[in-house]
């Protein structure tokens, strides 16, 4: 009987002849007692005659309860505690353990109040002495037990939902905390960046002066100047990253981009660096044209960051594969930091870009941390730990997704990016942010 039908019985009453018949299992080794119970139930005045089955041992009862086909389950068990294969409280516990959901009414030959209380505490619905049984009492107990059972089931469902909700809430909370942390890092970074730029500009001007006016510099002076210039460049690129990181999405200039063109362009940029490090870089591009709308420069930066990570991870050389394909967005991880109306949803058409290498990969315990700003495993001077943080931020500003997964069939890392596909408007430029633009000359160019 389905739960709905059972609910129906409880709602519309046991005397109603139009509800399905109840099914009882009487666990009893004494045939006389079984017949008595069955007789009582038949005369109790149920609207439809209940079905009453018998099991003479706990083992048999458990088998019947668990083996029965799901369309005809028992509704309630009447249980005698003294059976050939078990006696006393043990009998109830065994049944209860095997079938925790079925309501059990204990029919006992003795009148042990302590035992009765103990077993009801453990979940028995009732404890009735056999000598006081009569049809009306049995029916009442059965109906009330079923009613309580129904509420218990409801309560269990609620508890389950509550547990689930608590888990989700906890996840959302940690997301939010993460987002807040990032937010304050952003503000700090922007402040520091502006503050550091003036002294850096002074050093740059000083260097330029010395380089221009130092007549016949000796070898040491010359290399000092070169090293200082490198240091300034490095500091500038860190600041550049920090500012990028703290930038609002206003600065993303969307335009229609063909993913395959983007990848080809990035490959040209990193070709030299890959070659120098004995890394081959291969593109496996989708056959059809995948259009997205995005900020070309920023997306280029993302791919360069990822590829440079792979190159740096494969000190002895290796292989990078860049794959593009059309896809549907799978389950989304919700990012509470970005409360966007137009974030991507499950089933949205996306362009998928996967960049995988066959290097050492990223240990599971670091997977959560690599997107944190300033998290790096590289020595000072080699890594700032901003590459992935900036990249992820940029992808988020595109309302896309970026994750690290294990490379299939290899030890290496694989970064997967999904960007919302824009198949419909292939040629139309997609709104710039409408501000009058100033000619901006950036002195130092960031090279990978």
């Amino acid at each position, binding site marked *: 009987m389905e739960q709905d039908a059972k609910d129906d019985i409880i709602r519309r009453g046991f005397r109603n002849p139009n509800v399905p018949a109840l099914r009882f299992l009487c666990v009893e080794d004494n045939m006389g007692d079984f017949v008595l119970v069955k007789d009582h139930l038949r005369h109790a005045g149920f609207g439809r005659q209940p079905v009453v089955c018998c099991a003479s041992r706990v083992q048999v009862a458990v088998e019947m309860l668990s083996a029965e086909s799901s369309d005809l389950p028992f509704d309630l068990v009447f249980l005698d505690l003294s059976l050939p294969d078990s006696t006393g409280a043990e009998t109830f516990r065994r049944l209860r353990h095997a079938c925790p959901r079925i309501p059990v009414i204990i029919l006992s030959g003795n009148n042990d109040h302590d035992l009765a209380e103990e077993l009801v505490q453990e979940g028995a619905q009732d404890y009735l002495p056999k000598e006081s049984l009569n049809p009306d009492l049995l029916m009442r107990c059965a109906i009330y037990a079923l009613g309580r059972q129904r509420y218990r089931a409801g309560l269990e469902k609620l508890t389950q939902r509550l547990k689930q909700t608590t888990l989700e809430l906890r996840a959302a909370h940690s997301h939010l905390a993460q987002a807040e942390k990032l937010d304050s890092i952003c503000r700090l970074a922007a402040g520091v*960046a502006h503050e550091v730029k003036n002294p850096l500009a002074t050093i740059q001007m000083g260097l330029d002066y010395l380089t221009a006016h130092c007549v016949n510099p000796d070898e040491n002076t010359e290399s000092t100047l070169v090293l200082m210039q490198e240091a300034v460049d490095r500091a500038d690129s860190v600041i550049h990253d920090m500012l990028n990181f703290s930038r609002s999405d206003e600065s993303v200039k969307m335009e229609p981009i063909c993913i395959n063109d983007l990848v080809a362009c990035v490959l040209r940029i990193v070709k030299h660096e890959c070659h120098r490090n004995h890394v081959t870089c291969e593109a496996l591009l989708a056959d059809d044209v995948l259009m997205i709308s995005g900020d070309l420069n920023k997306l280029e930066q993302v791919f360069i960051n990822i590829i440079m990570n792979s190159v740096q991870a494969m000190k002895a050389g290796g292989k990078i594969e860049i794959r593009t394909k059309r896809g549907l967005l799978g389950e989304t991880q919700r990012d509470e930091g970005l409360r966007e109306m137009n974030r991507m949803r499950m089933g949205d058409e996306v362009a998928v870009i996967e960049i995988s290498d066959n290097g050492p990969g990223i240990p599971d315990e670091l997977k959560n941390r690599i997107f944190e700003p300033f998290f790096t495993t590289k020595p000072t001077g080699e890594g700032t730990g901003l590459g992935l943080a900036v990249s992820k931020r940029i992808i988020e500003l595109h309302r896309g997704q970026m994750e690290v997964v294990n490379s299939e069939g290899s030890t290496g890392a694989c970064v997967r990016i999904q960007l919302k596909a824009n198949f419909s408007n292939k040629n139309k430029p997609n709104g710039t942010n409408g501000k009058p633009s100033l000619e901006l000359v950036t002195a130092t160019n960031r090279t990978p």
Partner: protein
Amino acid sequence: MKTKKRILVIDDDKPLASMVKMNLEGTGDYDVCVENRSSRALRVAQDFEPDLILLDYIMPGLDGGDVSCRFHEDPKLSKVPLVMVTALVSNCEMGDDGTSQLGGHTMLAKPIRFHALLACIEKRLGVVA
């Protein structure tokens, strides 16, 4: 002998301003005057009669935007090319106000290499390098 071009540098960062001065004068082509207080920028500019003004955008008190407005209102100074130097990186960060008066002025992002600065100044002065 060709006459030296006169450049006014307005920047509250003293070391930076004097470095710029040193570099510019080091080329032998420029006379440079430095002013660190934006509140005095207009008066100094009127006295110095520069051929080009190099203006820092972020300064305490009057900022680059305010100063350029004053130059704009002055009949002589409004014709002098203005190059803005800023620690802000992109135009988006400028916000909406102020950008219209800035139209036509070149913006430079700090830190800048001297050769880039020089190229920009020469371009604005119409000097063929």
